[in-house]
């Protein structure tokens, strides 16, 4: 909670908005990430009580990593319709409390009773898994089988993102990285290696969406799309396509007009799935594309320009805040050491859920 208070104070200072003028909240939570607590009802009230904010607009989103982008969109809509003037968007919490218990947020039922993860618990949770890593590993394995994607290609993506991180003073991991080092890091869930998997950290992102201007550049939502696939992955026609294929189509934004891309990077394979699903290449083409393109800020396809959450860490098991922060810094010319020249349009895609049920596509740029 202290971390939350500190982040919000710094956000309000930056935005020049007085706390008493904040009249909206959009947030999300996962079990165990708020001081280790699993069950919190009336969650938004806990947050507002602590911060001392009275709201007239509240949105609690439940899409994991895809929530952050939905918050920004819904806050913008609320302001446009006059339901609120200043909406605080909050994403984060602690990864450490859950981690020290030897599980992920998708495995809390292993250490606590009475926790449900699915309507089919009795046929799912009886097996040994390490979700979300093991479920994404199934996807990576099948992607390799169907499209001849190699371990080296996934490692290349990790290396290229690390190169971007080396110029980002906020990144945790900034030492040079090689494909060999990625592939010789321990296998967590075959074929995914340790250095292809995000590390859960403690932290918050706070964004203030306001109808007033601030010292920051005025930006607006240029396009948005959302898709929620309810099927268990095992019941989908195949597991190598994500709802990003649908949310991006719904956003319908021409990719040639984009200056840089921030794609959700819980794992290397996650980025590759989105590269295909948002239409940068055809299905199965991500391996080759990752080899060919320069994803650095000055490259032909600036992507995860701050190194992504693979190098920034994943606050509270959700990377949505990390990609949104990088997008906003790029748009404001504040991406020190990694600025994309003329970053006027940023394309962001978020994925949520151990089973990739949720995808949000958000394009930010100058108001039209």
């Amino acid at each position, binding site marked *: 909670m202290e971390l939350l208070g500190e982040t919000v104070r710094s956000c309000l200072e930056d935005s020049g908005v007085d706390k008493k003028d904040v009249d909206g909240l959009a947030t999300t939570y996962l079990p165990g990430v708020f001081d280790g607590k699993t069950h919190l009802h009336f969650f938004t009230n806990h947050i507002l009580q602590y911060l001392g904010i009275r709201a007239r607009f509240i949105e609690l989103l439940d899409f994991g990593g895809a929530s952050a982008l939905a918050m920004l969109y819904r806050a913008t809509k609320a302001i446009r319709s006059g339901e609120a003037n200043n909406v605080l968007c909050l994403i984060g919490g602690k990864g450490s409390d859950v981690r020290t218990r030897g599980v992920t947020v998708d495995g809390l039922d292993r250490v606590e009773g009475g926790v449900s993860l699915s309507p089919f618990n*009795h*046929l*799912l949770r009886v097996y*040994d898994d390490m979700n979300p890593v093991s479920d994404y590993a*199934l996807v990576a394995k*099948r992607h390799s089988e169907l499209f001849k994607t190699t371990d080296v290609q996934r490692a290349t993506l990790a290396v290229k993102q690390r190169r971007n991180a080396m110029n980002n003073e906020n990144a945790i991991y900034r030492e040079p990285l090689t494909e060999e080092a990625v592939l010789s890091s321990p296998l967590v869930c075959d074929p995914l290696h340790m250095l292809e998997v995000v590390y859960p950290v403690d932290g918050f992102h706070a964004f203030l969406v306001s109808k007033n201007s601030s010292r920051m550049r005025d930006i607006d939502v240029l396009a948005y799309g959302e898709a929620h696939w309810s099927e268990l*992955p095992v019941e989908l026609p195949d597991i190598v396509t994500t709802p990003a294929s649908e949310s991006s189509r719904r956003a319908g934004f021409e990719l040639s007009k984009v200056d840089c891309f921030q794609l959700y990077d819980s794992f290397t394979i996650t980025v590759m799935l989105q590269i295909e699903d948002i239409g940068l290449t055809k299905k199965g083409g991500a391996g080759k594309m990752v080899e060919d393109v320069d994803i650095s800020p000055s490259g032909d396809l600036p992507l995860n320009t701050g190194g992504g959450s693979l190098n920034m860490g994943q606050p509270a098991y959700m990377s949505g805040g990390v990609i949104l922060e990088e997008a906003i810094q790029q748009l404001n010319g504040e991406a020190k050491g990694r600025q994309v020249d003329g970053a006027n349009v940023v394309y962001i895609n978020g994925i949520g859920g151990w089973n990739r049920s949720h995808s949000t596509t958000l394009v930010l740029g100058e108001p039209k």
Partner: protein
Amino acid sequence: MKFSVREILQHYKESFERGVLPYLRCTACNHSFYYPRDGCPKCGSVELALCESCGSGTIFSYTVIHRKGLPDSMYAMVELKEGFRMYTNLLETWSPRIGLEVRVTMRDTKFGKIPFFKANASEPPIRNDYSGGTKPSGID
């Protein structure tokens, strides 16, 4: 026929006890599915048939889970001959690959008797660095 969730779960439990893999088939659209609902997830019809699978299928995808201080285990998606897919752990499968034929095998666990899968053809343990997924946690 229309079945309650209770009746469906009873069919599943009894099937597991008899060593048979149950599933559901929608008699309106013919969609086969494993995870029990009282309506077809595809067309919404409540006209369902309680079925028994032949227990044979192929690996749709799999992963070997490595953890410090624990034996490796194998988590997988298996596609049954009847067309439905399910999550499982693979046991005694020494050379896993996508497309490999596997067969259901019921094991007693702390959750009761539940279905696992193992390679159809008996293959010798040729790899020393890999436990073959013999003991996922949950098997007492």
